[in-house]
Every structure is written in C-alpha cells, then in structure tokens.
C-alpha cells in the first residue's frame, strides 16, 4: 500500500473510531458497555483520537509537498493492522446496541444475595429513604442486616427487568438488574422477588417500575426481602441500565 494512501486510511479509521466513541457518548449508549465513572477516560479518548487523526492528515499534506524525503518510511506499513480496527467498528454498527438481559444469566449467573458492595457504602445505605433504594440496596440489606424487621412494611419503589424461573410460584417474578464495576465483561446479576398476581402476563426482560411494600420470604435457607407489589408500570430502558456497586 502506498505511503500516503496508508496514512489516509489510518487517519480515517482513527476519525471513525473517534466518531463512534463520541456517538456512543452522545446517545448515552456508553452505559451499555462501561461503568459511567470512566466517562472522563472516554472523553480523553475521543479528543486524543481526533488529535491523532488531524496529525496524520496534516503529515500527509506535508509529505505531498516534499515527496522524496518520506520514501524510507514505507517499510513500517502492515495494512493488516488497519483492517483489524474495522472489526470493533463493524460489531458496533452492525449489531444493534442492547444492554445485557436475562439471556446472559446462563453464563453470567444470577444471584438473590451476596456481598456486592464496596467497603464504604453499607453504613450510608441504611439511612437512605426507603423509596430511593434500588434493587441492589435492598439485596444488600437482606445480606448484611441480621435483623430485618425494621424494614418490613416499608414502601419500596424499584426499577428493573422482569425475570421468571422455575423456582418461583406462578404469582411471582424477579425484578433484576446487572451490576458492573468496570465494563460489561465483569457484569453479574441480582434480583429481588416480587409478589404480583398477574406475574404471568409480564414479558421476560421487559423493564418495569415496581411499587409496593416490603415483606420477607425464605428461599434456599436464606431470608430475603421481597416486594408485595401494589402497582407495576411499564417503563423504557433506563439511562443507566446497570447498577454500580
């Protein structure tokens, strides 16, 4: 591949990657892939990729003016390197963006309890208004609190996607979320049982807002907090489909 063509292709790919990241940022779909506290890094990436593309474009313009000097550069070109960068762009553009859902439980596993917590949050958590707690907060409470009676009959209002499995009764479903620390690669999932007479009519993986009061149940020898639902409302996929521990 001739030098200038190679450089142009390289710069175009950098620009495409920059636009791809910027697009994901702007559309909010970045939250399908990484923990949003890494957004500053992604912004750095977008800016630096643009800077690199600009440098290569202007290098190209300069080398057109002084053609002979740049001939010795030709040997470090491996066009295959460039073609590989097309792969993530193709995957990102051809496969519609979709956050992880219950189909990933088969490989990622599914929990109703566990220490999915960073060391500092436990104390803070129990002071929050019951209506402001998300699925993860409630699961943490079932796990950490020895005595859950103060939490019974509190009002809960949580958003998550519907998941039903064989262990549940017909009038129950899980309201579930994925938890990620870094990116979708380390996702794990949690769920909270909801009692709702029409549970059967809910579509697997549809997003719902569950309102109701807290009670408890025992599943596989563990006491879990559950929601006796008073209302179930369909909602769009939230801006942050995952929760962060």
């Amino acid at each position: 591949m001739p030098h200038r063509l190679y450089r142009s292709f390289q710069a175009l790919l950098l620009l495409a990657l920059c636009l791809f990241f910027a697009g994901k940022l702007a559309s909010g779909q970045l939250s399908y892939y990484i923990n949003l506290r890494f957004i500053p890094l992604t912004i750095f990436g977008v800016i630096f990729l643009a800077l690199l593309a600009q440098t290569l474009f202007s290098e190209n313009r300069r080398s057109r003016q002084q053609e002979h000097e740049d001939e010795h550069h030709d040997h470090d070109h491996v066009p295959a390197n460039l073609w590989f960068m097309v792969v993530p762009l193709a995957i990102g553009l051809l496969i519609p963006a979709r956050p992880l859902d219950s189909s990933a439980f088969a490989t990622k596993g599914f929990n109703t309890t566990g220490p999915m917590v960073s060391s500092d949050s436990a104390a803070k958590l129990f002071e929050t208004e019951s209506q402001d707690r998300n699925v993860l907060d409630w699961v943490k409470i079932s796990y950490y609190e020895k005595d859950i009676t103060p939490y019974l009959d509190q009002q809960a209002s949580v958003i998550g996607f519907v998941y039903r499995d064989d262990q549940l009764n017909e009038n129950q479903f899980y309201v579930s979320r994925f938890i990620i620390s870094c990116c979708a690669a380390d996702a794990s999932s949690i769920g909270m049982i909801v009692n709702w007479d029409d549970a059967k009519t809910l579509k697997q993986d549809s997003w719902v807002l569950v309102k109701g009061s807290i009670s408890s149940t025992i599943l596989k020898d563990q006491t879990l907090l559950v929601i006796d639902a008073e209302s179930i409302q369909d909602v769009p996929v939230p801006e942050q489909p995952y929760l962060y521990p």
Partner: protein
Amino acid sequence: MFSVQTTNSSKRLSRPLVVAVIIIVLILVASSMLPIIFFTWLWDRLNIFATVFLGIFVEAVPYLLLGTLASGLVEMFLDRDQMSRWISHRPIPAAVTGALMGMVFPVCECGVVPLTRRLFHKGLPLSAGVAFLLAAPVLNPIVILSTAAAFGWKAMLLWRVGLSLVIAVVVGLVFSVEKDASNVLRPVLDMAHDHHHEESKSFVEKIRAAFVITADEFFEMGRYLIVGALLAAGLQTFIPQSALLTIGSGPVLSVLVMLGLAILLSICSTVDAFVALGFVGTFSFGSVLSFLVFGPMVDIKSIIMYAQVFKKRSVAYLVLIPFVMSLLSGIIFNYLSP
C-alpha cells in the same frame, strides 16, 4: 526486500479468507435445516458477545492510547545514553529498578506492552524491562488507589503490591540469564531505522512525530487487543462462570478457579480490585489475593500482546512463572489463614 514481505503477508491473509468463506457457506447450508428457536438463541448470544466485546474494547482503548503515547514520547525525548546512565546493568539492581519504574509510568496491562518494547529499543536491560512489564500494571498509582478504595489501606493492598514486586523481580532475574536480547525479543520492523533528524527537530515537531508513532503503535497493539477481547468475549458468551465457581472451594482448587477467572475475565488492572471485592464472601483471602496479583500480569489479551513482542518460549516463561508463583502464594495463604 519490503515488497517481498508485503506479498508474503497478503498470501498469509488470503488463505484464512478462503477458509472463512467456505465455513460461512457451510454454516448457511447447515443452518437452513435448524429450527427457529436456535436463531433466537444465537441472536441472544451474538448480542451478549457484542456487548461484552465492546465493553472490554471501549474500556481499554483510552488506556492503550495512554500507553502508546508514553511510548511515542519516550522515543522522541529519551535517548539511549540517558537510559544507560539511569539503569544499572547488573541483574538484581536492574530488575528492582525496572519493577519500581512502574510507579512513575501510570500504565495498565494494555499500555505497558508497547511502552516496554520501546524501552527495550532504547537499551533497557532485559531483566529490568521484564520486571517493569509485570510490575507496572499493579504498582502504578491509579491501581494502588483503586485497590485501597476497594479494600482499604490494609493487608490485601500490602500483599498485592509486595507479591507483585517479588514475582516481577524473580521473572526479571530469570530473564537476566539470557545475554542476547534477540533470543527473547521478536525483531521489530518499524524500529529498525533510527530517526536521524531528532536533534534538529523543534519541540512541536517532536510532539508531532511522537503522535505519528503513537498512531502506528495504537494500530499495531490494538490489533492484539481486539483479538484478545474477541476471545474473552467469546469465552464469556459460551462458558458459564458458574461452571468455574462450582469446580471447587478447596484450598488449592479455589486458587486455581480464581486464576482461571483472572485469565477469562481479562479486565483492566485499574478496576479489577472492585471486581475482586465481589468474590470476597465466596473465596478466601489467599484466593482473592492470587486473583489480584496474577490478573494484571496475565490474561487473554495480554498473552496475545506479549506474543507480539516476545518469542514463544519467553511468552511461556512470562505466563508460567507468575502462574506458579501466584498459585503457590495463594495456597500458602489458604493453609496459614483459612
């Protein structure tokens, strides 16, 4: 000479292409006989695959850019004489300095590979470079802070840093036995020529030149990052994590499981502490520690990137010695404080 090489590489490319086309045709023929439910299953898998792959990729690209930028700047602003003044050529001091250099360069396991290769090119001794390669992803300030945020300034952090240092220095010393670097490192085409005009270049021109190097190296290393992320995402799409977790909870098996997980997950060392936190309840101190020590040194994408810089036998050493040492230390911890 160069034209010969291009024809070679185009020949190498075309055969996989033919094989790929044949496989796709076979898959199309075979799939026309399958029921619909298989396709919804496949579509779901494909979506998980894409999300996990892009997760790793989007997360890693800024770090890779930082690493290749550091490499570009080293190329333009650091000359060989300075390097040999700073770094001793005796094996032990070189390995220790190399490992401690990680504190200066804030790079994680994606960025450290191109940077190490550049430092080798600048005359860094083998033992120092290898120690740097293994230690930098743990010793750098970002990782220390994130580990402290997850586990506090306590035993886990101290042992993580200490053990990583020890392993990095040991592997560095093993490599110091080899006097001829060309037996260990793969030859690199684009570094064969020297930039003879360096002295005369202005600061801005040097920065521009560093950016061009950054771009070239970003593509060169990005290629292996992409292959590694594809593999990791593929494994995560088809192998249940629970399969690993249920294998065993014994003092030996649980360490093996955590080491396997470290390879499989392929997450960046800057955040793996938060992921490890999720295993604290289910796994012992020693097992989680082995995950935190081994993960930054070896995972799918870093193995593939190592293979780009080192020859096969050296890659085997780089993977196996840390593996055995992390395994042993994990087991020892499990027996001492179960």
